[in-house]
């Protein structure tokens, strides 16, 4: 079993070199002629490079919904981590095995229903 994880470790090493190799190759082949205009931020055509950084309107405001979805995600992702070990234990299932997960899920569905009721899932 440990050998398999050693292979995963070797694979991780190969996976890190895999995307770096073409970048290095491209670095050797590609032309390098940077000009000021070429390096300006992609925009609608108005030159923004002479303005102050604050006035460049790069950083735009975001809806608070992104944050709410992130919090909801954390709740459910932790749940999912518990579902897997429970799901593997099918060979020793009892009635309690089902009820246990039902109770656990009901608590989380309660949270989802609360968020739904409070209109947190609406994209306003």
């Amino acid at each position, binding site marked *: 079993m440990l050998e398999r994880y050693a292979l995963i470790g070797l694979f991780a090493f190969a*996976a890190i070199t895999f995307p770096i190799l073409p970048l290095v190759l491209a670095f050797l082949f590609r032309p390098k002629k940077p000009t000021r205009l070429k390096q300006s931020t992609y925009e609608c055509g108005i030159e923004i490079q002479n303005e102050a950084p604050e006035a460049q309107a790069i950083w735009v405001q975001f809806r608070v919904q992104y944050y709410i979805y992130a919090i909801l995600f954390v709740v459910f992702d932790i749940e999912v981590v518990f579902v897997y070990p429970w799901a593997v234990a099918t060979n020793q299932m009892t009635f309690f095995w089902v009820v246990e997960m039902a109770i656990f899920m009901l608590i989380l569905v309660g949270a989802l229903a609360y968020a739904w009721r409070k209109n947190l899932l609406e994209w306003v």
Partner: protein
Amino acid sequence: MDIWSFITNPFVSISQLINNVITSILTSLGVPADITRIVVFLIMAIITITILLLLAPGMMMYMTWLERKLVARMQDRLGPNRVGPFGLLQPIADMIKFLTKEDIVPEGVDGPVHLLAPIVVVIPVILSFAVIQFGVGLGAVDLNLALLYLVALGSVATIGVFMAGFGSHNKFALIGGMRAAAQIISYEIPQVLALSIPVLLAGSISLTGIVQAQSGLFGLGWFIFYIPVGPIAFLVYLIAATAEVNRVPFDLPEAESELVAGYHTEYSGMKFGLFYLAEFLNTFLISAIAATVFFGGWQGPFVAQVPVLGIVYFFGKTILLITVQLWFRGTLPRIRVDQLMNFGWKRLVPISLALVLFTAATLWAYRFVMLALKSLGG
């Protein structure tokens, strides 16, 4: 080794042959058994990794060809047909272009983040290929936690996409990155819950275990046929996974008509090539996972007699599922961001939660009835 078992199972036979040859050479040289084992392990590991790392870009290149050709036909065009017969050399021309294209790094980007983003996007996909079982005994690693490993790696790519959006110093990239992060985390929950249905049905979390659990009915006991849970779980998985890899109709993070190119607006040359690579390898990966857990992987008629057929079955199923996704690309319009979020949280999450509980209850009831019948009978 008799010739029949070599013909029916060539790849495993060859790997065993190499293994035996190296072992016997080292033993005859008087190397201790422990060191021999380690050397053989290292050589086999290097061979496996090299094959997979050559296979991955090759598959990706011809998937781009297939996509362009198929979508072109669906839209009544010809698609690439100039470079080589049927445009078959087009992917190679594209690769040369990626290599020789100037890499424009705009002013004001967050240097290290901008550079690392494409690398971070590619690494988890390549790592995921380590546990995929391409045929009977044909996987780099037969991990006992394979599905959990795949799920864990699947969420790492979000970081790379968000790094690209955040480090680009561009409004469009930032919006694309935020959208990608929100979309991927929202659709990850139904995806992972849908993947727990095969785990429940098979009672195993390793891909080999799940495939072996589908061996009934003359190699056709696939979980997709476990009506009603199988098809529903597969549909939930397909929708959620398509959203995970930002493909049409869920391509909001890179919506051309709104956001130029989304999170990779400021990338050019090989860095853009790496994003492109990651997207196609992800498409292959989700099709391969769906083929493994819902369509029986390498399972099919006569696999027990002729193991090499397993490769044909596996790639056949995977390519079919890839084609379904390309078909989405050719026919469906992009959905709006509020529709996306509503569908994810108000439809897919409740459906997948109910599905997990329903499957568990059904499994328990089935077992209970079976036990009761057994005790009545004897």
